[in-house]
């Protein structure tokens, strides 16, 4: 991989980041969204979050988890239990990660 290729590729990727994140911010003209679209945006954050995480939680190489010996299952259960007990994000991460690492390192799951 020549250095110029990687560098040019990366600069272009940075432009892609800027273009996608700024897509509807670029135009100087007022952006007239239909009322239903504006209303629908209210659901975009929650939909985006679950869209990103749910495959990471329930899939292994594109197939549903088929074994109970998967550390993610117990990490998610522990994290969920913590969240509804205390409502703290930090504790949710720490609890879930602790369970994950314990099962990964301790049992090789």
């Amino acid at each position, binding site marked *: *991989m020549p250095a110029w*290729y*990687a*560098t040019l*590729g*990366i*600069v*272009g*990727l*940075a*432009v*892609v*980041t800027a273009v*996608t*994140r*700024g*897509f*509807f*911010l670029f135009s100087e003209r007022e*952006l007239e969204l239909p009322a239903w679209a*504006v*209303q*629908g*945006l*209210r*659901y*975009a*954050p*929650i*939909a*985006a*979050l*679950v*869209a*990103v995480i*749910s*495959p*990471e*939680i329930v*899939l292994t190489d*594109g197939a*549903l988890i088929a074994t109970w010996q998967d*550390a*993610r299952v117990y*990490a*998610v259960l522990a*994290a*969920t239990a913590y*969240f*509804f007990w205390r409502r*703290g*994000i*930090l504790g*949710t*991460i720490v609890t*879930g*990660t602790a369970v*994950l*690492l314990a099962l*990964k390192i301790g049992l090789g799951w």
Partner: protein
Amino acid sequence: MSLIQNPEFRRGFTDTVAPSLGIAAWGLVTGVAMVKSGLSLTVAALMTLLVYAGSAQLAALPLIVAGAPLWVLWATAFCVNLRFVIYSAHWRRYFGHLPRAERLLLGYLAVDLSYVLFARRFPVAEPQPEQLPYFWGAAAWNWASWQGASLLGVLIADYVPTEWNLGFAGVLALLGLTYSLLSDKKSWIAAGVAAFVAVAAFALPLKLNIVTAIVAGVAAGLLLDRSFRDAAPERV
């Protein structure tokens, strides 16, 4: 009053600190992956500092290593980043009145975590003076923690055990954030639909399952809003 002392800047900052721990774990793993796939330290550092989009970087890595045509590389990243196009329509409601250069800078810095936290903090999508300081507080800490962790990953790639799945801490962070957003039945159902579609459509190339799932979740929410008008939706 300076930005740092602004209470909304601090609020954006502190709202970001806990979830950013998980996001930093993700950054660390991304840094490791860049080096392990064969990028030099300089190129990997350049990539994290400029591109600042973990999922697009991971999708781009095998293509760069294989020497794929540049347009393939860029088109891939564009598809993986499509969810940001949806976010940008939302950002426009808050930041449309600002000068273009400022809008684009804010957009460039607006990662998933900042978007979700911001929309939670300001559910009514209209400009308010508290929004810019909040945004900067959230964006500053997210940028610093992601970049710090990612550069650390680049430097210590050989010592991070990838079989531990440390990046899952990022999933757990977003999971907690998801729970904090589930306010009513309609948001539960919209989330359920999005989760189902993201999994069912996983076989789509270029992570297009993500943007498909967002559209499905939003559509489900809209249908519910239409069907149950008694619970009048808040204005966005």
